[in-house]
């Protein structure tokens, strides 16, 4: 039978989801294996196979589509284990990537990190200064040649870099997106002199205005391609040996998948693709259940990731930051703070106030209750002390938790000094974490110009369902959803992804725009997107393309992505586009904000998608509300509004069926996650098995 397999390698766990043609779902988790990530991938598939009473070969031979999300590029960047890369750039501008617009020292930092000025550092350079060479050439803002490129100088520069041992060369000249001739000439020259060298060129990787970000993107691509290439090749080999007939496809940070071959040459497009599956999955699930605007919250062991789906599409950011480098590739926008099950609780020196995170106990030594060496109290310890977690049913009983150790840790490090009973200290830890999560949900939506109360909130990741009842109520979102299989939801998102090709180019212009010129730009971009998808094996009839423009008011910095009608473009369709720009600008930035200023269009984007047939999830008929058959136990759980520990019904997630309704207070346990229903709240199981949580009836 045809199967679709999606595997998501994370920092701690590798998650696997298998969908069969009937829409049946199997999930599995295996530890990630950073020394060779392909090992964890194969392990997770093997575990899924076991659940289906198959062996690895059995499941791989039956698989027609294998989708994979990998952190290999992110990991190579964070550990600085990429290739030795050289940079050839415009003479006089060699330092741009070191200067990093001076924001580099602060890029991606939290406010508290930023206030510690003496400890700020710039990025550990992916290209050291001695491997940067300036070459005589200059093109101006119109794309006109001011000084022709000195090819002899470029040849010397390349030869010197090769002599210095570079494995890749990045080429980035000023204004190359307006006129790529100089970059092209130099790239060809280097390729002909050094055929084995990887050459990556800015007008190919990211032909977008902003020389620092474009340069960083190009250099990162050169830096990461070697490692990524090796990893994907190895994975292809292992899977093929195991019996997989199809070539795996790789999740991109823009959302959507691309072929293994294309991904090897564009490693930078995989950076930060980790949380993308979840946001993409949320968009797909939102479409299914009629939620167009969604805040996604992914709570793991160490981080809390927030993404947005607006009008059915994941929100995209054009200049994402990766380990202090701003780049210029559109990616799904995810904000992260250090807050999760492993976050450490501590007392602030000087005031004795309780703080939670951002430091985490990690997998090792882990929370105190793991009993594997951790002695400091974490959020997981607090949840255990409060009775929210079952010590005998954590990860389905795979890991036994030690309540006494959790109790000791909280007592010694928090409760005694703060003069609180242990359970109140534990509750304080959870309350503080929940409040921080609510704050991040608010700031990350408000900061992008949206009101979170107009959004549905989805919670997933191992610890999402444990906390969502509190932070969703605090934010005041109208609908809260814990998706079915929430602990492996990201892998679901990967499974739901279609092949995608996003092609962009800058050509800044001021309104009134020339429709013919724009049409020309879009036709060329669309041709590139279609070609890329076809090369990935997508049939032409399955391809759809859509156009976007990044526009702004002249003199302003906010760029707004606006859909542009399919061609051929005329005065009328451009008027529609301009109106849509004003509407979107006003919605995000306030009405009448800059209405008198001229409008600029700067960057043009075509997104090509190859629609693939997917196994369809089928809604089940709704049964009765009574969750009684899923009630498996009762235990003492702490709820402050009820005055402390109270007998609380415990339901087993797998036994709940569509139509069931669970009223708070209650706890619902699955193998890989636990959900808390607060007093006054209510959770309904919908036809697809999602939990719809109504938090309006109760607050903490």
């Amino acid at each position, binding site marked *: 039978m045809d199967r679709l397999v999606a595997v998501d390698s994370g920092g701690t766990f590798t998650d696997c989801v298998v969908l069969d043609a009937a829409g049946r779902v199997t999930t599995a988790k295996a530890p990630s294996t950073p020394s060779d990530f392909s090992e964890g991938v194969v392990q997770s598939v093997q575990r899924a196979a076991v659940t289906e009473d198959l062996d690895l070969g059995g499941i791989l031979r039956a698989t027609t589509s294998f989708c994979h999300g990998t952190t290999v590029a992110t990991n190579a960047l964070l550990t600085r284990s990429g290739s030795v890369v050289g940079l050839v750039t415009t*003479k006089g501008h060699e330092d741009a990537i070191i200067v990093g617009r001076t*924001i580099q*020292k602060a890029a991606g930092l939290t406010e508290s990190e930023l*206030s510690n000025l003496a400890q700020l550092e710039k990025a550990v350079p992916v290209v050291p200064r001695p491997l940067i060479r300036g070459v005589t050439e200059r093109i101006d*803002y119109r794309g006109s040649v001011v000084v022709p490129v000195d090819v002899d100088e470029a040849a010397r520069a390349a030869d010197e870099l090769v002599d210095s041992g570079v494995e890749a060369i990045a080429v980035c000249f000023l204004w190359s997106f307006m006129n790529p001739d100089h970059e092209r000439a130099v790239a060809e020259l280097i390729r002909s002199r050094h055929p084995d060298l990887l050459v990556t060129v800015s007008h190919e990787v990211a032909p977008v205005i902003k020389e620092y970000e474009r340069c960083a993107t190009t250099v990162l691509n050169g830096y990461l391609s070697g490692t990524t290439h090796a990893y994907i090749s190895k994975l292809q080999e292992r899977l093929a040996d195991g019996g997989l007939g199809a070539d795996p496809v790789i999740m991109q940070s823009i959302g959507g998948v691309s072929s293994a071959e294309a991904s090897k040459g564009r490693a930078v497009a995989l950076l930060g693709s980790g949380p993308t599956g979840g946001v993409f999955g949320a968009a797909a699930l939102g479409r299914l259940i009629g939620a167009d605007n969604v805040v996604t919250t992914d709570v793991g062991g160490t981080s809390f990731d927030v993404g947005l789906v607006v009008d059915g599409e994941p929100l995209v950011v054009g200049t994402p930051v990766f380990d202090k480098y701003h780049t210029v590739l559109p990616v799904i926008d995810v904000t992260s703070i250090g807050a999760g099950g492993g976050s450490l609780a501590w007392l602030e020196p000087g005031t004795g106030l309780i703080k939670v995170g951002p430091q985490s106990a990690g997998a090792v030594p882990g929370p105190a209750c793991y009993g594997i060496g951790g002695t400091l109290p974490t959020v997981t310890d607090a949840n255990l002390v409060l009775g929210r977690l079952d010590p005998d049913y954590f990860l389905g009983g795979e890991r036994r938790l030690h309540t006494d150790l959790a109790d000791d840790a909280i007592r010694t490090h928090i409760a005694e*000094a703060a003069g609180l009973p242990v359970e109140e200290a534990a509750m304080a830890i959870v309350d503080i974490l929940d409040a921080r999560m609510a704050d991040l949900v608010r*700031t990350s939506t408000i900061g992008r110009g949206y009101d979170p109360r107009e959004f549905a909130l989805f919670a997933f990741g191992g610890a999402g369902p444990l906390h969502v009842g509190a932070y969703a109520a605090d934010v005041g979102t109208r609908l809260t959803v814990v998706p079915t299989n929430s602990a492996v939801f990201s892998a679901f998102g990967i499974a739901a992804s279609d092949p995608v090709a996003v092609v962009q180019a800058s050509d800044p212009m001021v309104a009134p725009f020339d429709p013919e010129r724009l049409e020309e730009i879009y036709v060329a971009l669309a041709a590139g997107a279609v070609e890329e998808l076809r090369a990935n094996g997508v049939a032409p009839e399955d391809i759809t393309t859509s156009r976007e423009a990044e526009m702004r008011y002249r*003199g302003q910095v906010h760029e707004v992505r606006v859909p542009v009608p399919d061609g051929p473009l005329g005065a009328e369709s451009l008027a529609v586009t301009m109106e849509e720009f004003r509407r979107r600008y006003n919605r995000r930035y306030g009405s009448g904000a800059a209405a008198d200023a001229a409008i600029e269009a700067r960057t043009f984007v075509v997104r090509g998608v190859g629609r693939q047939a997917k196994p369809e999830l089928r809604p089940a008929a709704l049964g009765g509300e009574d969750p009684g058959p899923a009630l498996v136990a009762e235990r003492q759980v702490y709820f402050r509004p009820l005055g402390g520990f109270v007998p609380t019904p415990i339901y087993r997630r797998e036994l709940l069926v569509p139509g069931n309704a669970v009223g708070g207070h209650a706890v619902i346990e699955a193998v890989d996650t636990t959900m808390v229903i607060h007093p006054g709240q209510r959770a309904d199981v919908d036809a697809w098995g999602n939990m719809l949580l109504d938090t309006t009836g109760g607050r903490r």
Partner: protein
Amino acid sequence: MTDTLPTEDLVVGGNGALDPVTFEILRSRLSAINDEAAMTMRLVSGSPVANEAYDMNVGLMDAGGDCFAIGMYITIHALALSSTVKDIRQRFAATDIGPGDVFMSNDPYVGACHQMDVAVVAPIFAGGELVAWTGSTVHQIDLGGPVEGQVQLGATSIWSEQPIFPPIKIVDAGELRPDVERGYLRRTRLPHLVGLDLKAMIAGCNVGVARVGDLAERYGTDVVLAAIEGINVATAARFRARLRELPDGTWSHRGYIEYDEVYPVVVEMTKQGDSLTFDFTESADQAGAVINCTRPACVGAVVAAVLPYLCYDMAWSPAGLQRAIEVRTREGTVVHAAWPAGTSKATTTGSFMATISAGVCLSKLLAASEGHLRQFMSTWMGGLYVEDMFGVDQRGEFFGAAILDAMAGGSGARSFADGLDAGGFLDSPSAIIANIEDIEYSYPVLYLSRRIQPDTGGAGKYRGGNTLAMTYIVHGVDQLPTKVLHAIGTYQPGSIGVAGGYPSNTNQFVIKRNTNVREMLDGGAVPDDLGDLDGEMEIFTDSIVKTSQGRDDVHRYVAMGGGGYLDPLDREPDRVLDDYVVGAVTVAHARETYGVIIDSDEVCVDAAATERRRREIRHERRRSASLAGEPARQTGPS
């Protein structure tokens, strides 16, 4: 002795309504609300000033006007909001301050840092009670006055600078007053931009009013009031605890503002137990206009230095700090202007130098502390160069712009590492300089280079960060008719070194006139530096220059690096070599200042020659010291 704060200290005016957990949640929530206000303001404004230079800020004040939360933007602005609120409390009848009101002011003698930094503040009511204030401010590019932009060249008092207005109601019970808005926009050359920023500041205030109001409704007014007071008490307690960890003593510094003459800013800082005093009374008498700052700006400038140096691990709550800090000034000085002295450029002169000078004292305090030596920073970029350009752009439209590349100054050396090259400046850690492509697209210029300039950071065992040098020509037009170049630190480096470390370079701006740059470009060459070009050097020695640039003129400026730490003769020769390899230090500078002889062919250190050279420098130091004081006992190398 424990520094743990007794819980009951936090419960002020709240009838015991506030427990420590709720306090922690509310503290974080109030700070998030302030962030939201800043984000909202930036989004509505959309200007590069608010979104890249971050020359803006937001603050939350208690009912009395003390500022308990500020954004991570330019610190001094937030204190201006506080002074403005206090003035309103004093001058307006309580019945004239009501829900839905918003006030604005650009009066430096009330609180604004200078006339360009308009302060917009709004009271927050809950259940009919005034519980707090919210405020926002964004630097404006033009608010009228005889000269375009901020620097009122030729002004002799505040009357010949931009028009000023003390606090006035711009929104009355929720209704924008169109007459006041019209009067405000009438005076600027850029009514559209200024109008939009006004909306942005009001929008920022609206967020604070609504969200703090919600909080009071949800938690109770008493609880929120107790939390606000708790923040001030807790910050004061933490800050006093920090002071007790540091050694007692007195440190001083003398900084300079170049204008029609040189104006010293003199500060003596005394740290005793858990109090900190800054005494500026010996500073120079005020100038007629332009460079002075008022007392509120000077106090804000001191807080802007104390926060990054001493409060690196605590929430930035100025009111709490101010309870432990005393700032002494003398009216009639450059840092405490007496009416009607002008202040149009204050934030890059009087108050800037007050921050730098206070920072130098604080860095010396940290250098003397074993426990906090790791937080030591020598001076960050001690003088900001700004270029205001006005003219007709390549599309034939009038434009005005500020070129702020110099914000990429060098940061100060640390006790364990060098300062950051192009590290930025202390008072705005998030500031971003523009991409050259964005500048060239918008304005009629073409950059020949923008590089990190070697040797600009102060030398030391740990050196200061180097800064940028850039050269550009006009492009697409025949000339830039108006360029106003202004800076301090043109005679004397603002970034001094500490404990034997050397100072940075000075701010330098020159135009090479009537060069052969066009022929060179046409001939297929890009000049590496001005030395490659024919033409006449015009070297500007004044700190404020109004000039123009023609087709064949090449403008070059070098911004300011950071200060060094400890004697450069103690820097490991191999680390000097590393600096040479990455282009941070030249062979000549290595020899002259570090005493390290680099063989540039072999790319190695000549150890014996280095030893000799370092001995020679030490001897030279003894000799010159003896010329200044007691006769030297030795006359030759030992």
